[in-house]
């Protein structure tokens, strides 16, 4: 089983959307997070600790990536085999079936998987592309192309994210970052200073979405060999910190490489995709020279699971997300079909 998660919070309904496939069909599920998660420390009372399937639907093809469009009940997926984006309506109270409501067809079948990100404009839109020249912003309701990147390049995209309603970042798999604005087709390119070939790069953006000013944002670049660079969004040419993480290079699946900033805690980020663990680092302690930083916490649950003991290969974490409001809660999923919701404890600070 292969699971991809996307987490979202939808006014009152605290749910996550999960897609998984077992060969025949993909299932997309909207799961309500167990109420146990919301029980306070001393409250003690906790009625439920299971995920409730609130809505579910089927996808003919395996789902490669899954995002939620904020402010809507809409989810967009990409499949490994098709050249279209699928639009789904999660549904309301009257039915528990997730229905496909539309398709965004692409001009051509991409060689590699498509990366997607939700647009932050008032009209629901999705930013998508498999290589730089194909990156475009499409309005979901009408299929109208709102914006296209003017750059001709077949470099493959490994990450996309909007900083605010107009400004977005593209991460190329060779490590280059591009910053664009949907009001202007040109982009600013920020290639890596010394780019080593053969490495795959991913990025994580922390944006203070309430202020939507680029000045409060930090960007992390992570390579498949564990090389990490941190930037202030205002200066993507010189990192304010760079270091080498003590991880094993994962040569098989670069798609799982994932670096995320904690939304609540300051300067905390998490890394996964190298193996079956999720590492959490506090970047405040980092200095530019010096040894590999130690993680403040490592979640080994997926490696230690019951299933992992009996299978020949260890599971690899496919994706992870931070909870929007609980500072130390994360969700992670792995190739063995496991889904974990967990809190971490900083051994030094929290005791």
């Amino acid at each position, binding site marked *: 089983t292969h699971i991809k998660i996307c987490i979202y919070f939808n006014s009152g309904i605290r749910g996550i959307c999960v897609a998984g496939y077992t060969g*025949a*069909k993909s*299932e997309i*599920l909207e*799961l309500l997070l*167990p109420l146990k998660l919301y029980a306070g420390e001393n409250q*003690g*009372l*906790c*009625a*439920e*600790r*299971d*995920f*409730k*399937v609130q*809505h*579910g*639907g*089927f996808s003919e093809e395996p789902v490669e990536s899954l995002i939620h469009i904020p402010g809507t009940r809409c989810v967009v997926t990409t499949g490994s085999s098709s050249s279209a984006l699928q639009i789904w309506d999660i549904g309301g109270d009257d*039915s*528990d*079936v*997730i229905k496909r409501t539309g398709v965004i067809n692409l001009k051509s079948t991409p060689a590699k998987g498509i990366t997607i990100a939700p647009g932050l404009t008032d009209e629901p839109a999705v930013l998508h592309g498999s290589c730089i020249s194909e990156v475009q912003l499409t309005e979901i309701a009408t299929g109208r192309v709102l914006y296209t990147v003017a750059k001709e390049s077949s470099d493959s995209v490994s990450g996309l994210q909007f900083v605010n309603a107009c400004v977005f970042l593209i991460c190329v798999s060779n490590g280059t970052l591009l910053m664009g604005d949907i009001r202007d087709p040109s982009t600013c390119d920020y290639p890596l200073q010394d780019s080593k070939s053969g490495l795959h790069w991913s990025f994580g953006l922390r944006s203070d979405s309430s202020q939507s000013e680029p000045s409060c944002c930090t960007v992390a670049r992570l390579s498949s060999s564990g090389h990490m660079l941190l930037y202030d969004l205002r200066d993507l040419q010189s990192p304010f910190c760079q270091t080498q993480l003590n991880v094993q290079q994962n040569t098989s699946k670069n798609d799982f490489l994932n670096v995320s900033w904690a939304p609540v805690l300051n300067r905390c980020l998490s890394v996964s995709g190298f193996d079956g663990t999720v590492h959490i680092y506090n970047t405040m302690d980092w200095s530019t020279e010096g040894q590999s930083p130690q993680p403040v916490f490592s979640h080994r649950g997926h490696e230690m699971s*019951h299933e992992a003991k009996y299978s020949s290969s260890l599971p690899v974490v496919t994706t992870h997300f931070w909870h929007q409001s609980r500072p130390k809660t994360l969700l992670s999923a792995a190739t063995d079909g496991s*889904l974990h919701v967990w809190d971490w404890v900083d051994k030094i600070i929290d005791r």
Partner: protein
Amino acid sequence: MPDIKVTPLGAGQDVGRSCILVSIGGKNIMLDCGMHMGYNDDRRFPDFSYVTQNGRLTEFLDCVIISHFHLDHCGALPYMSEMVGYDGPIYMTHPTKAICPILLEDFRKITVDKKGETNFFTSQMIKDCMKKVVPLNLHQTVQVDEELEIKAYYAGHVLGAAMFQIKVGSESVVYTGDYNMTPDRHLGAAWIDKCRPDILISESTYATTIRDSKRCRERDFLKKVHETVERGGKVLIPVFALGRAQELCILLETFWERMNLKAPIYFSTGLTEKANHYYKLFITWTNQKIRKTFVQRNMFEFKHIKAFDRSYADNPGPMVVFATPGMLHAGQSLQIFKKWAGNEKNMLIMPGYCVQGTVGHKILNGQKKLEMEGRATVITGTLDVKLQVEYMSFSAHADAIGIMQLIRMAEPRNMLLVHGEAKKMEFLKDKIEQEVFVRCISCYMPANGETTTVVTNPSVPVDISLNLLKREMALGGPLPDAKRPRTMHGTLIMKDNSLRLVSPEQALKELGLSEHQLRFTCRVQLHDPHSDTDTLGRIYTHLKSVLKSYSIQHVPDGTVIVESIVIKVTSSAEEPNLKVILLSWSYQDEELGSFLSTLLKKGLPS
């Protein structure tokens, strides 16, 4: 159309008072007869007026089957058999038969003695009801009558719980009761063979959940208990005497042993000894691990768990107490709760589902102040709930994954879901209907009182006479394809209860009838400027060229014979060129005869 009808009288889109009526092959079966624990009035019983408006149920039911001893599956049994009236057989497994009366009596005592109810079944009624019980073993086919047979399968869930297959002829239904697809510490997992029932009636309590891992659940439970005991608090765990309590006992016992804990663990008296007695007695119902260790020591002989005495509740210091009943609706658990509720160091752990209306349910909904009433209570008035309340769901029910597993095992043609919150189960319905490797499945979710009719495709076995078989096989023609159906002619004789296929001649002989021969004649007019004899010759040549594989003879007496068809040509003296062709055939050659007449109407080639 042959069909099976299923009507839930309780547990249709609802949990509580399970009672399902099935009509199959002319037989009527009642599956379970439970009581809804949340109501105090008539709503707690299934509505038997669906069976008959007034009078006893005996002639309307061929049998009653009880899946396990939980009161929401057997609680209304004495009411049904003794107060409404039913004298037929009641089937259940041996452990269920042994334990049911105990729980029913306990329930009766609380309802009547403690609550003061009057219209309720008596102890004698329970005894009379149990006299009608016919116990059965797992995988043993029991003939209820000549046509109806039933068979029990292991269901896990609690001691003695079974899933039942009901079969009449080639139609069958499987009812799961409550079941569990993952083994636990003292019971194995449910199992069934590929019996391919027409309908699989399954419980769906957790159908729309993805359950947390059992290990996490247990670890949390132990952590809570340990914390409370370490700080000197008392832990109350309300349980039903028999059921999940045994699982928790084994869990705590193992933990206490491993951590070398000294705080006492008690199990409330009365039902304790009986409970353990039955678990020891029915040791074969438990899982492999328990049976293996049974030789050295009985798993249910606990070292750290002792019998409880009412006075212990006032003892200082930490302790853990398992007390009945499970939803805190009366009895000892409620008494202890009242004593311990005011101290925030204490903890209450509810290990199961609490039906609406019970104290357990109110507390789980966060009520901090409770109105206490009733006789012989320690505290009356308002009770402040200060102790910590935890809910751990340990009940063993199949979740969505488990239900799919059972479907793959049994391969039913149709699914019917009961015992769940069916407001929104369309997704599960779709999921079931899409199972690729099971033949086209439909999924139903009837509400109480709603009848689901499922059309079946039963096969009817018929004996064929040897003569007929030999004759049909001896017929010439191309080699038969084993997979393709072949038309044969025979006569079906239905006499008494047997069905036989014989040749028509034999049938006529047996029935003492003589055979009638039917011949058809037809006249075709044709213009042909030849003599009658020549015209006949021309017809012969024509037919020979068209009907190459048929036997055509030109007989000197002036006829052409095709198979059994006789053709003659005549004409009148006034119009010698207007020929009248007479065709005559017997009914077996009807098709060929029609063909020839149509052919000849078109005329002859020149």
